[in-house]
């Protein structure tokens, strides 16, 4: 049976999705990147291989696509047929499930984005700029500081009857605001609910500024698991928000669909063996011109498989056999 694999390597989590030719999701996988994308990809592939062996041994990988902030790295070490940015990947994933969706809110570990869809294609998008206020990493840190598991953050927020106001323009301010509220004696649930509202407001004022937000609205990414944030968005927008199935792995799903639609005659996939090989990345500064590009070198079992990061193409076009 022919299957297509999508891999989304983000800052906090790594997602793998395997789909068949009928766009059915066979295995969704969600792992923590834990600062080691190579290890996370290898671990994910190993787990996937075990599942395939146990459930359906006649699965054959016919194409691999990668997305997320580590898409180039993931593409090089798995031998991807397609490397796509996360915006197009998410748009594709959403459109195959919700052809009528008009707005996609996606909040991940380090970034947050908005995608405006029309007739099943992305027509506009926005990404958070320099600041990552209101993303998963900040919620993680605050949950840790308040001593509540991040998974229960949303439920605690829902308990609140009178959320406090917390300024969320910048995480540094909102943290000091939170501490102030906590020292004044507000209930934890009120603070947590206030924080959710603040983050939703911040998102709408920054990332979604100047975008034409129309229903139906779909909410994706790790933060969409948080019911408190869902409610905050519903209140701020005055619209119902849908959180679809596979909400956390939508990027990987989208890129798998894209590979399926543009199949190459023979996949470049390097096989599941890659998960047991020694993969290392090193970088050096090219001294060739004043640009001083940082060139990244990926080695599998000591052999250089790819170089990238140079602007002029001097290193990435080098014949690797000779190197």
């Amino acid at each position, binding site marked *: 049976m022919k299957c297509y694999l999508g891999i989304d390597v983000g800052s906090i989590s790594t997602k793998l999705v395997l789909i068949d030719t009928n766009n059915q999701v066979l295995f969704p996988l969600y792992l923590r990147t834990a600062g080691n994308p190579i290890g996370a990809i290898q671990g994910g592939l190993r787990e996937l291989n075990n599942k395939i062996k146990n459930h359906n041994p006649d699965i054959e990988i016919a194409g691999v696509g990668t997305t997320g*902030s580590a898409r180039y790295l993931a593409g090089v070490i798995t031998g991807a047929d397609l490397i*796509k*940015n*996360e*915006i*197009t990947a998410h748009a594709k994933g959403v459109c195959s499930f919700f052809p009528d969706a008009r707005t996609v809110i996606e909040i991940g570990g380090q970034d947050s984005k908005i995608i405006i869809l029309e*007739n099943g*294609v*992305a*027509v*506009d*998008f926005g*990404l958070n*700029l*320099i600041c990552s206020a209101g993303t998963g990493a900040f919620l993680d840190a605050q949950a840790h500081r308040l001593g509540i598991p991040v998974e229960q953050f949303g439920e605690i927020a829902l308990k609140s009857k009178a959320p406090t106001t917390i300024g969320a323009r910048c995480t540094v301010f909102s943290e000091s605001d939170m501490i102030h509220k906590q020292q004044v004696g507000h209930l934890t649930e009120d603070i947590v609910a206030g924080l959710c509202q603040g983050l939703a407001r911040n998102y709408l004022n920054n990332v979604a*500024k*100047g975008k*034409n937000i129309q229903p139906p609205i779909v909410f994706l990414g790790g933060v969409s698991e948080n019911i408190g944030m869902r409610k905050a968005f519903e209140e701020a927008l005055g619209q119902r928000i849908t959180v679809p199935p596979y909400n956390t792995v939508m990027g990987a799903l989208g890129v798998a669909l894209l590979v399926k639609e543009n199949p190459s005659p023979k996949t470049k996939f390097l096989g599941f063996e890659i998960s047991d090989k020694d993969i290392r990345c090193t970088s050096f500064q090219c001294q060739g*011109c*004043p*640009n*001083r590009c940082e060139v990244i070198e990926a080695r599998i079992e000591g052999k250089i498989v790819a170089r990238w990061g140079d*602007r002029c*193409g001097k290193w990435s076009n080098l014949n690797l056999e000779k190197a």
Partner: protein
Amino acid sequence: MKKPIITFARWGNYTIAFKTIFEQLGLEVIPPEKTTSQTIAEGAKIAPEMYCFPLKVTLGNYLPALKKGANTIFMVQNVGGSCRQRYYGAIQEKVLKEAGHDINFLDFRATPKDIYSMIKKISGASLLQVLKAGRFFFKKLHLIEKIEKLAQFCRPREIEKGITDKILQESLLKLDELKKEKDFQELKKEILKRFSGIKIEKNKDLPKVGLIGEIYTVCDPTINFEVERKLGLEGIGVYREMDITYHIKKLIFPWKDWIIQRKINPYLKSTVGGHGRDAIYEMLHYIKEDFDGIIHLLPFGCMPEVTIRPILEKIHLESGIPFLSISLDEQTAEAGIDTRLEAFTDVVRNYHQYKSSKL
């Protein structure tokens, strides 16, 4: 007075033409080095933090030249109309002197009279010499702008990938080395011949993107992360109206501003400084020309461009044309720009397909 050794602010490929003026007048000149992350970091270190980005970059450009022995800096005022660029000279002089550089800072206005008297004072050249140098400057400038436009045209259509950039870089290098005006015609012919020799797919249906925004960031590929090249290689036709000739024309013929004002009246009724009005005008113009996307480039803290950004966003919402605004400063990471450009390319292609399917 010491013998002047001149350096000046770098501005993309046009630096070559500026260098020529000083050389022709027999002055010693150390041209500013290519802008790199190192230059930007060095400049930002000594510049006031909240000042706009080009001030930091140009400061960084002077530093290596000063190290090599330059002692005189040329800085033109008022290039972009009424914006903070006017105070660049005064601030840079103060900052550099505070950093312990013993320099002669020549700050002058962009009027022919001021430029002439300044050049006259420093070089002691005759009127004829100055005119000759000016003529050579314009010749080089026009050729640079012409081959930039040719490269924009050829890049997305080229059959052998990367050939256009190779020829562009080699041509610029040769132009930089050219010292005598009498050899110019021959070189021009050779360069244009090489460009016309590039094999291209003539009737390719390309999505078109217009580049608008602040003149310095739009024109200098080392500042804007080579937006033009990256889009071109992705098979997108890139156009921009901003260059030095455009700016000079506007200085000489004031009615250009009146025409622009008339066209943008529904959106903005007065000037906001810099090239704010021009950006709105260009965006409306590109929409009329059936373009498939607009990229707005601005340096962080650019007052005119920040002021008009909401207007551009409004035009984008009204017309539906894909729009991407990129604000550049020393913190900007190339990876972030690349992700946005890649996604934008997809959006532009979708829009282009959607439009052609409607026909």
